[in-house]
């Protein structure tokens, strides 16, 4: 019976050690470097760092509240996930972390096919200018609730029905979130902006995706769409303004 006692004691010790190990590994991992995204029209690579080794998990989707797709990677403190077969001209939302813990959220937009940085087909002659590396889009936090970002709540469904398809929006909140994200990206990347002093409207343009948005004096969205006219932006009134000069955060 002595042997059995010793075995039980060993098992207890082992169990104790296992519990200690699990407890240590459950301790919160922290982000050491916020996610950075390198994006092309159909691929995106997301990098981030953690303070200790942990698993790699990235969830993503085209709606901020439905990150339905998942990619897992190895245990490490430097994490890289590459997404391919993405749709050009589309805004994606993502969260990064491990299987246990979500550490950060962000968003990126793939350039439209045919836009200068995304035009790459096998038939492109070699004399064509080398494809410039697309700029690193800034990673924005997850959008706030629609009531905080959209100007007139009653108008949202009408704008969504009319312009949501421009951005493959799946519902009014998704459309409003994308309009908010557009402004964050415009501020981070210094996209063209015009402030109309006569009524406080801010107009924002991204030539690469052909997207336009207007915001009220508080930064809430008035509309977001892709104009058909190639001279639309040039014809919009307002004085050019830098992100740091905006009258709202």
């Amino acid at each position, binding site marked *: 019976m002595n042997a059995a006692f010793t075995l039980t004691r060993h098992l207890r010790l082992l169990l104790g050690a296992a519990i200690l190990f699990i407890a240590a590994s459950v301790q919160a991992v922290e982000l050491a470097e916020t996610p950075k995204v390198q994006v092309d029209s159909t691929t995106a690579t997301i990098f981030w760092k953690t303070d200790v080794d942990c698993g790699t998990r990235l969830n993503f989707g085209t709606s901020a509240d439905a990150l339905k797709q998942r990619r897992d990677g190895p245990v490490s403190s430097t994490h890289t996930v590459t997404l391919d077969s993405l749709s050009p001209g589309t805004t994606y939302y993502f969260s990064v972390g491990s299987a246990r813990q979500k550490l950060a959220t962000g968003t990126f937009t793939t350039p439209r096919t045919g836009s200068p940085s995304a035009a790459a087909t096998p038939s492109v002659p070699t004399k064509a200018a080398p494809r410039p590396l697309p700029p690193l889009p800034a990673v924005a936090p997850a959008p706030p609730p629609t009531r905080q970002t959209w100007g007139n709540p009653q108008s949202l469904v009408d704008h969504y029905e009319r312009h949501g398809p421009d951005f493959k929006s799946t519902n009014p909140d998704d459309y409003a979130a994308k309009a908010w994200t557009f402004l964050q990206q415009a501020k981070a990347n210094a996209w063209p902006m015009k402030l109309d002093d006569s009524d406080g409207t801010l107009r924002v343009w991204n030539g690469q995706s052909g997207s336009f948005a*207007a915001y009220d004096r508080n930064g809430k969205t008035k509309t977001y769409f892709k104009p058909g006219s190639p001279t639309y932006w040039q014809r919009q009134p307002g004085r050019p303004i830098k992100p740091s000069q905006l009258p709202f955060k």
Partner: protein
Amino acid sequence: MKSKRHSCPVCDYPGLLEPPRSPSGGGSYEICPSCGFQFGVDDDDKGITYTAARATWIAKGSPWTSKGTPQPKDWTMKKVDQKAPKKKTVKKTVKKKKA
């Protein structure tokens, strides 16, 4: 606080929240909940005139188009003169009792 309302130059609906054009000439981007015209988009981007939009809207039976803004009880298509579209100026703001 009741804010001033503005009249739609396409369908005469008097409940627009903003003037269709700012003093600078820029569109308000408001979609008229009555006729569905979007100022700064249907005109500036698509090149549709107010007169043409009005004719199109009337041809459809002058429907209330908004799904988010309810139709005021005292605003019906009967108020619209369906035979003689009025000429409108861009910045005209009609001071009517609000709907």
